């Protein structure tokens, strides 16, 4: 245990750093380069898990666990939840719309990175004390942290607690929508439907063929055109209806062609056989 947080790194840790560090950078790059938000979120989750491993390697056992539980477990799931809410299939165009933005961003990023790395390189960071003494002072990493949090940092801790509560309330306030009218009962809804005179029965179910009974596929009307009514309103609003009407016709066309080819080959064979028979 102590060796992991020693002042001199072991060969194992070096290998682990180079392998996982490369993956973490790739994950970070993928996060900012993936077209779909859900892919970005997954790449970020991977990077965060690797960071958790690095925390552990640096002797921050509590933080490593918290990183996995809080970040990858809670925060990233929250992200995914919102991504789903917004539309999981919506792909962003990576084409830049602001003039010069990408060049400026690249220049700033490069300059910033070079400056940071130069700064770190400049600093005299040769002496690593290691966390062995600090972690064992109170009997372990968690105990050590607890000792600090509830003594030296107790006010900051209390204030972060208040911040969390405020954030929770703020999120509720932001997303909450006050109901301005009473919700209609089922009876009233059915009466309204009768009064309007359309769609007295329940809306038609999505899907036509067994393999396309997903909720985002519109059911086909008798004339072969899709009916949007069969798809959930949320999906309709997001424009996430998959149109399979042409797919089916294409499938049919391909089937006919294939059968015709087969039939034609049979015919040719028959013709050939016939000529041979005459001879």
């Amino acid at each position, binding site marked *: 245990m102590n060796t992991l947080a020693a002042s001199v790194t072991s060969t194992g*840790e070096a290998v682990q*750093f180079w392998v996982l560090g490369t993956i973490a950078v790739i994950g970070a790059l993928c996060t900012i380069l993936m077209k779909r938000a859900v892919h970005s979120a997954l790449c970020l989750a991977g990077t965060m898990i690797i960071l958790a491993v690095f925390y552990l390697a640096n002797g921050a056992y509590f933080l490593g666990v918290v990183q996995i539980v809080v970040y990858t477990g809670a925060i990233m799931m929250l992200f995914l939840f919102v*991504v789903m809410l917004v539309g999981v299939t919506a792909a*962003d165009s990576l084409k830049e719309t602001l003039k010069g933005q990408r060049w400026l961003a690249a220049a700033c990023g490069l300059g*910033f990175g070079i400056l940071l790395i130069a700064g770190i390189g400049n600093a005299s960071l040769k002496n690593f004390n290691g966390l062995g003494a600090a972690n064992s002072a109170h009997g372990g990493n968690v105990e050590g942290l607890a000792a*600090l949090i509830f003594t030296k940092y107790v006010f900051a801790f209390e204030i972060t607690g208040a911040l969390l509560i405020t954030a929770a309330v703020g999120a509720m306030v932001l997303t909450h929508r006050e109901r301005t009218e009473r919700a209609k009962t089922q009876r009233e809804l059915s009466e309204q439907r009768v009064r309007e005179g359309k769609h007295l029965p329940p809306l038609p179910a999505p899907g036509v063929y067994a393999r396309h009974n997903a909720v985002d596929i519109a059911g086909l009307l008798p004339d072969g055109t899709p009916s949007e009514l069969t798809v959930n309103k949320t999906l309709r609003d997001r424009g996430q209806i998959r149109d399979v009407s042409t797919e089916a016709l294409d499938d049919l066309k391909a089937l006919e062609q294939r059968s015709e080819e087969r039939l034609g080959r049979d015919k040719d064979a028959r013709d050939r056989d016939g000529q041979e028979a005459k001879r």
Partner: protein
Amino acid sequence: MNPVNYLYLAALLFTIGAAGVLIRRNAIVVFMCVELMLNACNLAFVAFSRMHGNLDGQIIAFFTMVVAAAEVVVGLAIIVSLFRSRHSASVDDASLMKL
């Protein structure tokens, strides 16, 4: 290996996150990039903690996580309500503060 490499890694990740903030239009991805930057900072703090041989760096990283959690909660709430009202999560669409 020198543990200072963790710091280089943190700087690299931070820069990548910053570039993502500047480049991406999707508010959710921008937000993720902010999280990436915060995580890079946390890595630096943890490395510093090891360097100095005390736990204060880890405490700071811990508080950063708490603040990041609060920030995510509020930020995502804002994104959701933005999406509700504008039917778009693009940060460029919310560009009313100009002439």
